[in-house]
């Protein structure tokens, strides 16, 4: 996903001279392609995220389109007030790219785990929040962000994620993308769990449950239409994300459902509980622990669906 970001930005920056790239001294073996091609529009701002985001606001005030790159937790949390006051309050054209979404840095401890970032970004007026599901969605999200006037937060994982989309898809602001047209249950996924969700959906299909798999890269604005349609047409809605169950995709979907007048549909948020992980381990280890592996996810969904809650 990280290289999909760099490759896309390099191409866009060739045509669009307004694009600048800032990093908080992170991106070794990721950003070099851009630095080589567009050295005058790249700045390593040092380990100083507050200044970096303020600078991005200044660049945007001068008509540039700065992309701010770092491990997601650092700009989002260290520079939260700069994102709020300098960028969102003034509705400036700044794009923030947070890498290492969710438990990507599972071995580094929670300082590096962005499990509460979507919550913070979603609460800011003017901010668009995108959590792409695979490298193809990363490319589409970066292309979208350039066309979109205003602040955008894009959280991406690491490297080596598989492409899930096997055909062309529409990437439109505030729109989910239906991957499987199932009828029994709906599984809505945001971010890098798309691959596991896809495998879990296949396992559930084998057990005779038809799954409507929807990728929801836009957590804000949220696709109300696709949620309400799923609530009417399927018997259960599950949300799934590598993020706290508070404030992310699950909360966004819950808000839409709670305000709808559709008769109660079985609804469950799957994500991290309201804790910082108490132990470390490989990414797969922690994913297994929190029930994010495709096996555990499928079993969990099946159990909840059969027990109706």
């Amino acid at each position, binding site marked *: 996903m990280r290289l999909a970001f760099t490759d896309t930005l390099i191409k866009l920056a060739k045509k669009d001279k307004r694009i600048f790239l800032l990093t908080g001294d992170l991106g070794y073996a990721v950003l070099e392609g851009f630095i080589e091609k567009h050295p005058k529009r790249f700045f390593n701002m040092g380990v*100083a995220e507050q*200044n970096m985001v303020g600078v991005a606001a*200044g660049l945007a005030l001068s008509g540039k389109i700065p992309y701010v790159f770092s491990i997601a937790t650092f700009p989002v949390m260290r520079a939260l007030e700069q994102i709020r006051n*300098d960028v969102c309050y*003034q509705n400036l054209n700044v794009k923030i790219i947070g890498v290492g979404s969710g438990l990507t840095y599972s071995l580094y401890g929670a300082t590096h785990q962005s499990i509460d970032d979507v919550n913070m970004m979603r609460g800011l007026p003017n901010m668009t929040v995108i959590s792409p599901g695979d490298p193809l969605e990363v490319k589409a999200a970066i292309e979208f962000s350039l066309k979109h006037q205003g602040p955008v937060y894009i959280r991406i994982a690491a490297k080596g994620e598989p492409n899930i989309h096997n055909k062309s898809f529409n990437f439109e602001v505030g729109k989910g993308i239906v991957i499987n047209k199932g009828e029994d249950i709906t599984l809505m996924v945001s971010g890098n769990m798309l691959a596991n969700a896809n495998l879990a959906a296949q396992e559930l299909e084998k057990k005779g449950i038809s799954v409507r798999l929807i990728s929801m890269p836009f957590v804000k604005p949220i696709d109300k239409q696709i949620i309400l349609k799923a609530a009417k047409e399927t018997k259960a809605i599950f949300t799934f994300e590598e993020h706290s169950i508070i404030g992310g995709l699950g909360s966004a979907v819950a808000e839409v459902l709670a305000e709808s007048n559709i008769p109660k549909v079985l609804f469950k948020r799957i994500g991290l509980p309201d804790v910082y992980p108490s132990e470390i381990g490989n990414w797969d280890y922690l994913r297994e622990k929190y029930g994010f592996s495709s096996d555990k996810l499928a079993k969990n969904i099946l159990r909840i669906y059969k027990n109706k809650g």
Partner: protein
Amino acid sequence: MIDNYQKHAKEIRRNILKMVAFSKAAHIGSALSVVDILTVLYFKILKIKPNQPDWSDRDRLIFSKGHAATALYSTLVQRGFASKDCLENYYGDGTKLAGHPIRGCLPGIEVSTGSLGHGLPIGLGITMSDKYDKKSSRTFVILSEGDCDEGSNWEAAMMASQLKLDNLIAIVDYNKIQAMGRVKDIIDLEPFKDKWESFGWSVEEINGHDFEQIEKSLINIPFKKNKPSVVIAHTIKGKGVSFMEDSLIWHYQYPNEEQLKQALAELK
């Protein structure tokens, strides 16, 4: 020229007093201390066109000490960016003339400020863009000394000297009183000049109420080629109104009718 400055500064101060008194607002001491600096900037130093506030080659002024917004509003009106009756909107229901400036609330207001520690990084970003575009425009950032407690300003200070940006200028309105008391009793900034110098800036210390000194200093910017410049302007909180000078209470209090009358009489 000095007489001219004095005339404008008096009028700016009179308007600040009226705005604050009528709206029962705070921060009058912080506004009065920065007036003489703003006067020289807007009437001599800044390359601006009041009738064309978005002129692309203009110098920019970022008012990081946003709580002194009345000084900025009043100065912009005095310079002809907006008509005087605009000032009556200050604190008004349904208006945009807030206690802290909102970008575009008056022509010439470049950046929304209010929380301290934001102006210098934004100014740095604008200067980086200007350098890339090979523009000669300069960006002036006005800081309070309380502003200088914020680490983000020092992050920006380091990077500005790293990038050798001599079109970035910081002016510290150093009135020695912050929100809860004397600066030296809260976080002493001294040795202040040495701090800026050690961060790679060229520094001048001036009396921020002496028009000649302010002008002489600002005309010579950049003080050194390839270095950002900072002017440490020694000022007096509440300057111009005898009973408001150098007093913490006027960070909060607004003048009553009697006090307003007396203050305006002193500024005739």
